[in-house]
């Protein structure tokens, strides 16, 4: 048995100090030691995307790193993102559009959506589908998730007063078409 190692990590804004076995994945640490079971394990090899969390603000697989590697870094899980309301609009649209069924992929979908929408404000459906390429969902067939992310982007743009690509295209079409 290897000895436990001290880890200091900020999780959902809270400073955590713990002693962990080096082989404990960040996902197992979050789930078993901190009770943050919103981070799910679907494959433990970085393929399904159910365990995505934000590490220093970037989406990473919590199954593909050891808790000791997060020492000195910040982690945000779906619980933290929910409490800070950082993803409240995404969650609301997911709810209204029923962009989840069993919910097991949902935390990962939300983390992907959150990071993606922070980089791409006016995405096409193809870009959304591409961004979801590492998130497996067996229930929905993905369309509702794509709809929900597109709808969130539109909502954010509306609130910021920015017309979408589609709207701009429609507008320029209208201008070009003699009436």
């Amino acid at each position, binding site marked *: 048995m290897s000895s436990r190692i001290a880890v200091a990590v900020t999780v959902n804004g809270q400073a955590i100090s713990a002693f962990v076995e080096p082989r404990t*994945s960040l996902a197992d640490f979050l789930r078993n030691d901190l009770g943050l079971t919103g981070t799910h394990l679907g494959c433990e090899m970085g393929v399904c995307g159910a365990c995505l969390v934000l590490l220093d603000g970037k989406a990473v697989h919590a199954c593909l790193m050891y808790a000791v590697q997060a020492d000195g870094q910040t982690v945000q899980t779906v619980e933290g993102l929910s409490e800070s309301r950082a993803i409240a609009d995404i969650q609301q649209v997911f709810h209204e559009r029923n962009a989840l069924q069993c919910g097991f992929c949902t935390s990962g979908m939300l983390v992907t959506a959150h990071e993606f929408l922070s980089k791409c404000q006016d995405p096409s459906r193809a870009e959304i589908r591409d961004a979801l*390429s*590492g998130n497996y969902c067996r229930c929905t067939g993905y369309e509702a998730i794509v709809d929900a992310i597109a709808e969130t982007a539109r909502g954010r743009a509306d609130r910021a007063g920015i017309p979408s690509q589609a709207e701009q295209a429609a507008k320029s079409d209208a201008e070009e078409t003699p009436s």
Partner: protein
Amino acid sequence: MKARAFEYVRASSLQDAFEAFARVSGDCCYLAGGQSLVPSLSLRLQAPAMLIDISRIDELRGITLADDMLRIGALTRHAEMLTSPEIARHAPLLQLAAPHVAHPAIRNRGTIGGAIALADPAAEFPAVTLALDAEFEIAGPEGLRRVRAEGFFKGLYETALEPGEILTAIRIPPFRAGDRAVFDELARRRGDYAIVGAGIQGRVAGDRIESLRIAFLSVGPAPIRARHAEAAVAGHALSPAVIAGAQAALERDLDPAEDPQTSPAMRLHLARVLLGRLLGRLGEHPACKGAHA
């Protein structure tokens, strides 16, 4: 699917890492992004006694242009290939290949040094370094050496790295006016390991391809440079006959293996189709524009 127990140390410098390596008796691995190593440990395919975490060594970071070479630190993440202006300008082939590398969250964490050192024959970046005529900086307890990509990939997951050595940077001759780069691959699903993929960097003079380097992934035990195909193209304009000649020549370049989903003949066929399409694009498009599908 839990890893066997191991010891863990975090190195703060290369020196630190080499000393840790020297101290360990038994298997020992360097850990950087860990996107391939961690699942391998979870599956218990590998069970090192110790992991030496090199992910916080500052010497392994940074993208700089010096001595007419672009130097990419080994810890540069795959995601940075998509966002770095230096890479877009001086090594666009890396930028073209990057969207095909796994999925966004893997790209956030995986490092280029790790990808090169692992030398997965189905990975994009090792093949691309062949097309770029890159060289690798390798540090060991005895000091620094450089190895060209050509001589680095030796076989299935086999490289020129000696035990204890660390790949510290990739050095690439910068993209110049008249250079063109194209990359594409055929993968069953977005982000999957490709059935076949290829990157090409060429120099164009008028309508003639003056010189070019074609590198394939997933068609042999290591990334492969298609020298016969290159020879069929170099010095010619890209006519259908020249492209067909390059496609025919591929048989002598590639060594595809059998797997449950894909026969060697199918891989060769797909490599030819892909090569034809990429050469077509190389001829059509101005440098690197719109080159990824």
